[in-house]
């Protein structure tokens, strides 16, 4: 066995006990200190609130922060709403109903995707129209309505 191992063994065998009475006294002291620490922390938090309430500058700053937060929330929220509305508008059902009700939407489709987009929209509108009436729409009639031809 090496010196180090021997010393380690002596260290391991060396031990102590503590006096329970003194242990209790120290634990009581610790509990008091613990309670004082926790109550001190609470009073510190209350003090911070008091500083905000009492100081005019801090009060204005806090109010500004709250207003900014509310504005940011609404801006973000409305942007989300716009994105959501765009998504809904892009669904086939909504697109079809818009196409059927307004020529403006066809015009804007032309601007976005040229004649191909108009044709596509027209085909969808035609499908819808077939369900309701026997009178079929044609692209030439539509173009006429838009003022791009002279006669049907």
């Amino acid at each position, binding site marked *: 066995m090496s*010196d*180090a191992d*021997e*010393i*380690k063994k*002596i*260290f391991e*065998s*060396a*031990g*102590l*006990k*503590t*006096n329970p*009475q*003194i*242990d209790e006294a*120290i*634990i009581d*002291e*610790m*509990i008091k*200190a*613990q*309670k*004082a*620490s*926790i109550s*001190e*922390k609470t009073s510190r938090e209350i003090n911070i609130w008091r500083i905000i309430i009492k100081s005019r500058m801090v009060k204005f700053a806090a109010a500004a922060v709250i207003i900014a937060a509310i504005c940011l929330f609404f801006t973000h929220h409305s942007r989300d709403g716009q994105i959501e509305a765009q998504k809904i508008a892009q669904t086939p059902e909504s697109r079809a109903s818009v196409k059927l009700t307004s020529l403006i939407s066809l015009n804007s489709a032309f601007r976005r995707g040229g004649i191909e987009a108009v044709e596509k929209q027209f085909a969808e509108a035609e499908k819808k129209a077939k369900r309701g009436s026997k009178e079929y729409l044609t692209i030439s009639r539509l173009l006429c309505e838009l003022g791009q031809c002279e006669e049907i």
Partner: protein
Amino acid sequence: MPSDKALIRDMKKGRPDATRKLYQKYITDLLKISLMATSDIHLAQDCVHDVFIRFASSISRLNIRTNLKGYLISAVINEIRARMNRSKLLNPVSIEQINDIACPAENPQRWAILNEQLKILSNAMSQLPQEQREALTLKIEAGWTFRKIARAQNASISTVQSRCRYGLQKLRSVLKEGE
């Protein structure tokens, strides 16, 4: 025994049973380490007592990321150093004093009651220089690495290694002389 994290969390909530459990978990180890590092039972007791009270009084601000035992050992070692620097208390206690301290029947208000091996070991450790005693205690009793001890002692790893080596040799010869 609950984990250190749970104990600290409960202490922060103000639960006295958590404080009691934490005390019971570490008191023996800390007292032994403190006694080994100081070879002075009074100083050892005072340091451990102060560390426990200071720990409890700063519990709401504490944020321990490493293990709690290591934190408490470091606190005890720092307290010992601070006290020794303050009072230049480097005089070892005699074996008679340790015997007197260790007799609970004669002196019932003593906190630590040492067994025979610890008395002998503490007396032998008192023959070593402070740095060697501290390095040996942290290495053998606390199980710290040389790197960690070097950081605690603000010394190089090789210095700590030689402190432990010379400390062991000296301790061995002192213990042999005692036999």
